[in-house]
C-alpha cells in the first residue's frame, strides 16, 4: 500500500447491540488485505473494547483506522465526560460502569488494560467535560 487506507466510523452511543460493528468491519478488511490472524485479532479486540467504552461512558463517538503495511493505527474520539484518573482507569478490575451495563457482561474493568495488552502503543488524551481521544498502534511484523 502506497498510502495508509483510511476507514471512518460513527459509533452509535444508544445501541449496545450494534456496538462492535466497526471492529467487525475492520477485521473483515484486514482479512481481505491479507493480514495475519494475530494482527486481525489484536486490532479488532482492542478496537471493540474502545468502541464499548465510548458507548458505555461517552454516548458514542468517532473511530478512525489507518491501515498500512507496517502498522495499524486506531484513533477513537468522543465528547464524553473525560477520564478523571487515567492511572486508576488503567488498573485491571477498576470500573465505573453502571449496573445495567454489568448485566450485559461488560464492566469487568478490563477494557483499557486489554487495549494496552493487545496493542504496541497506546496514548490517552482526556479532558474533564470535553472528551477523550485514544490512539492505539499495532505494528505489523515483517
Amino acid at each position, binding site marked *: 500500500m502506497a498510502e495508509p487506507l483510511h476507514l471512518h466510523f460513527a459509533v452509535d452511543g444508544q445501541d*449496545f*447491540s450494534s*456496538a*462492535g460493528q466497526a*471492529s*467487525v468491519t475492520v*477485521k473483515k478488511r484486514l482479512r481481505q488485505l491479507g493480514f495475519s*490472524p494475530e494482527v486481525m*485479532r489484536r486490532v*479488532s*479486540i482492542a478496537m*471493540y*473494547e474502545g468502541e464499548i467504552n465510548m458507548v458505555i461512558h461517552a454516548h458514542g463517538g468517532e473511530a478512525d483506522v489507518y491501515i498500512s503495511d507496517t502498522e495499524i493505527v486506531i484513533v477513537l474520539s468522543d465528547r464524553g465526560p473525560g477520564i478523571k484518573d487515567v492511572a486508576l482507569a488503567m488498573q485491571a478490575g477498576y470500573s465505573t460502569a453502571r449496573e445495567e451495563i454489568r448485566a*450485559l*457482561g*461488560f*464492566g*469487568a*474493568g*478490563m*477494557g483499557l*488494560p*486489554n487495549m494496552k*495488552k493487545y496493542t504496541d502503543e497506546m496514548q490517552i488524551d482526556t479532558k474533564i467535560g470535553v472528551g477523550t481521544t485514544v490512539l492505539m498502534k499495532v505494528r505489523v511484523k515483517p
Partner: protein
Amino acid sequence: MNFSALAARLSLEHAAGPVPASFDGVYAGDLLSRVMSRLEKDQLWITIMNNVNVVAVASLSEAAAVILAEDVSLLPEAAAAAEEKGIAVFRTEMTAYEICREISRLADGGAI
C-alpha cells in the same frame, strides 16, 4: 479435539451457527473483557451470558464455539447474529464446572 464427538457425548443442543470440526482448549467465564483477555483462537467458550455481545466477542476472539451452560437460551437477536457471523452456539443444562469436568474426562480417555 473432535467437537462433534464432544457434542454427541454431552448431548449438547445446537442453538445456532455452523458446527465446528474441532477445538483446541477451553475457557469458561462471563465478563466479556476478561473473556477477550483470556479466550484463545479455536477454543471453546463456556458462559451463561446469552446476549448479542457474546456473538461479537466469540467472533472477534475466533472461538471454535460457544457453549451456554445452566440451561440458558440464546436470545433471538443473538441467534440471528450467530447465524450471520457463522458462530456456533450450543446449550446444555450442565454447569460450567460439569462441562469442563466432562471434557477433561473424555479428552483423557481419548474419546474426543
